């Protein structure tokens, strides 16, 4: 479970940065300040914070000029309406190009990138990824569907997103939409849950040979994902280069995910381990959400 690759930059890439013009300018600006005598420091800090708070308040207040921004906008993909303290967007075309959603958000002054990804039925309308700076306290809120609890696959049912009006900065949201025929799901849902394609079947810690007949008996296709468990049994990695290794009947299944309609993905490794590496222990049999 390597996270080094998530780093935007490595220290080695910045070597020598201290000699840059900007870095020197900062150094000069910092040492030009004469720090207050030691015993006065606490008060100085308090005052500075107060000044900063005022400055922040002014800066934040400035862009919110009610009456100058539109309070609604719509295109064929989505309509957005201001309702009190929130923007409420109703998605009318879940398959639309993300640029169409961006256009709607932009029209009301928001920099939101909404991406709808094909997902298993249980993740439709659920947010599975968000990111971005300067989201207000509470951040992005998903409120479900309009009308409430309708089936997003049915006409007249819209997925809804809701954001506080003071949302600022760039924001990214990825949520599930119904998959088109043959489209792979992106949500990695547990296939053995209630409503899943393998509902009621226990696959974890069994061998491939044990589970395949039952899965195929349900008319499902199987794809394998070969995992490399961490030595301590807690977590795993996946090597894309190894995925074409033939999987034998004696291999161990650790979990089953929805791959697409009519197909499930088995997470497998050649050798049995003391712990299920996917869960760092036994798979919870009541995994809920």
């Amino acid at each position, binding site marked *: *479970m*390597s*996270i*080094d*690759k*998530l*780093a*935007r*930059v*490595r*220290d080695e*890439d*910045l070597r*020598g*940065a*201290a000699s*840059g*013009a*900007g*870095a020197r*300018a*900062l150094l000069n*600006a*910092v*040492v030009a*300040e*004469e*720090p*207050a005598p030691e015993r006065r420091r606490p008060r100085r800090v308090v005052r500075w*914070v107060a000044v900063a*708070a005022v*400055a*922040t308040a002014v800066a*934040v207040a400035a862009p919110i000029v009610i009456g100058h921004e539109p309070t609604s906008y719509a295109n064929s993909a989505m309509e957005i309406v201001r309702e009190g303290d929130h923007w409420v967007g109703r998605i009318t075309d879940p398959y639309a190009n993300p640029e169409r959603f961006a256009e709607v958000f932009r029209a009301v002054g928001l920099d939101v990138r909404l991406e709808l990804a094909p997902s298993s039925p249980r993740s439709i309308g659920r947010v*599975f*990824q*968000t990111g971005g*700076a300067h989201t207000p306290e509470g951040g992005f809120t998903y409120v479900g569907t309009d009308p409430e609890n309708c089936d997003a696959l049915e006409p007249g049912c819209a997925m809804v997103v809701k954001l506080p009006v003071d949302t600022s*900065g*760039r924001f990214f949201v990825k949520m599930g939409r119904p998959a088109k025929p043959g489209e*792979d799901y992106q949500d*990695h849902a547990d296939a053995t849950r209630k409503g899943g394609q393998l509902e009621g079947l226990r696959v974890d810690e069994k061998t491939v040979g044990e589970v395949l007949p039952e899965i195929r008996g349900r008319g499902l296709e199987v*794809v394998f*994902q070969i995992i490399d468990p*961490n030595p301590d049994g*807690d*977590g*795993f*990695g*996946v090597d*894309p280069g190894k*995925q*074409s290794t033939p999987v034998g009947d004696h291999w161990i299944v650790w*979990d089953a*995910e929805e791959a697409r309609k009519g197909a499930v*993905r088995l*997470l497998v490794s050649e050798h049995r381990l003391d712990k299920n*590496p996917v*869960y*760092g222990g036994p798979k919870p049999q009541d995994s809920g959400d």
Partner: protein
Amino acid sequence: MRTETDRARFEAVYTDTYDQILGYAVRRCERPEDAADVVAETYAIAWRRLDRLPEGDEARLWLYGVARNVLANHRRGRLRRERVAELTAEIADVYAGTSGGDGVEFRDIARAFRELSDGDRELLSLVAWEGLDHAQLAKVLDISRNAVRIRLHRARRRFAKALARGGVTVNHVVMESL
């Protein structure tokens, strides 16, 4: 009053640690302006607290601790300094030179990582990105080594679970071509 000696000492620490503190900030801030603010405020505090600034590698660890607090205040919107324009421009170049990761596996790991609490994420980041060991973490976080060990173990477990929930997975294209 700061003397020439103070200034020389600060400048030496600044030059030695700048790329690491810059890296720390860039890795945690979405925007170059924010990273510039964090770097600037961290060193401004170091200059004000020169009497507390340790020697040698300890200085770097102490600065990480300061940067961590600065970052937390920044996220709460409590930081606003006059910006050094040249610095912001220079840091913007660093951002421009980076390419966001891609691929399904990258996104899934990134998502699982984001799901963690700030505390867990920071702990794992300090290990993976800043390369700190238990003793160094104890200094930065100002907690005992034993506490570091326990927190790290728990953070890793939670990360493994988050990964499992999201399913760290391989490139679909590769898989579907089996």
